[in-house]
């Protein structure tokens, strides 16, 4: 046993610091019970798949004054949207600011379909975002090497490490300082956003990463940033760059 540990330590030491970090990165999926894992991994028992089916319907339904469907321009999502979710948040050229996948879909809806944007966290927006993200399932998160994103990732990182709220907690205090340990009865994951939008059993529905972040902020007794706030987009951009290399799981299931 001691020999085994010694060997493992030697192997880890050989990998060096960079390799070690990549080795240690774990999706929240790894911390779940076998039952919840099984629920996510079987498409016939993953409730997120109900939303994927709805998203597929929305993808093909003409909408707005332009009366055009997503598929009217983008064709088959399995081809045109493959890998898309691995690259968001990305810089939106018209505003030169970062935008997340749900924001991009809403922008397309307004500018191309000439339709009203879906409200934040509406079932339609979640279904369509999940359907698009689902096309990248299994592909590694690959944030774009775009220098314009650097300041936003930096401010996201600052927010991640800043202590907020009445409890004086930061994201990093739990998700880096105590990842893998327990908060109450629940295991604290490393906070890699690999599976959004995901089905939380507690929510009994699909939710976005922004909902999760706002939820955590409420738990810290801080005032949550509004849906779509630049702070949340910056946090998303940082978290995705932090999760580089982990596979997309959408639609994930979490307890």
């Amino acid at each position, binding site marked *: 046993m001691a020999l085994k540990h010694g060997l493992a330590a030697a192997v880890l030491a050989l990998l060096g610091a960079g390799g070690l970090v990549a080795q240690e990165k774990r999706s929240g999926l790894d911390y779940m019970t076998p039952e919840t894992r099984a629920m996510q991994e079987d*498409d016939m028992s993953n*409730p997120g798949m*109900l939303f994927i089916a*709805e998203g597929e319907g929305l993808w093909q339904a003409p909408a707005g004054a332009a009366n055009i469907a997503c598929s009217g321009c983008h064709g088959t999502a399995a081809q045109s949207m493959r890998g898309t979710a691995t690259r968001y948040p990305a810089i939106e050229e018209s505003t030169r600011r970062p935008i997340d996948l749900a924001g991009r879909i809403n922008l397309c809806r307004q500018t191309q379909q000439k339709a009203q944007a879906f409200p934040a966290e509406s079932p339609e927006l979640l279904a369509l975002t999940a359907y698009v993200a689902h096309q990248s399932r299994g592909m590694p998160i690959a944030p774009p090497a775009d220098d314009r994103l650097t300041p936003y990732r930096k401010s996201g990182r600052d927010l991640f490490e800043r202590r907020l709220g009445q409890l004086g907690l930061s994201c990093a205090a739990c998700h880096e300082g105590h990842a893998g340990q327990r908060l109450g009865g629940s295991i604290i994951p490393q906070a890699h956003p690999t599976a959004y939008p995901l089905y939380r059993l507690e929510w009994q529905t699909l939710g976005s990463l922004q909902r999760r972040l706002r939820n955590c902020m409420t738990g810290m007794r801080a005032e949550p940033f509004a849906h779509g706030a630049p702070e949340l987009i910056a946090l998303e951009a940082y978290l995705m760059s932090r999760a580089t290399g982990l596979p997309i799981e959408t639609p994930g299931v979490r307890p």
Partner: protein
Amino acid sequence: MTRALINTPKQAQQGEVIEIRAMIAHVMETGHRRDAQGAAVPRNIIHRFQCLYDDVEIFAADFYPAMAANPFIAFSTVATTSGVLTFAWTDDQGTIQRATAEITVV
């Protein structure tokens, strides 16, 4: 529009025990919650699930407010003849959502 996931074997041997799994999108509103204005949200749950095998009821269940949203149900039956399995979910608003699956028995 019925949003349901039905998982049944496409083909089975005569007399084989087969597993049937069915999940449907439904809010399963308990009737115990209040909205942001403090008004009670009326109960709206699926209260009856039924499965017919060629028009013969082979499984049925009553649901109650403790059921989670998007209820999932799994049960087994014996494959007898090639035919159609019909699933029906009835909620408190009287809406009946249906789905079907075909099975070939050899």
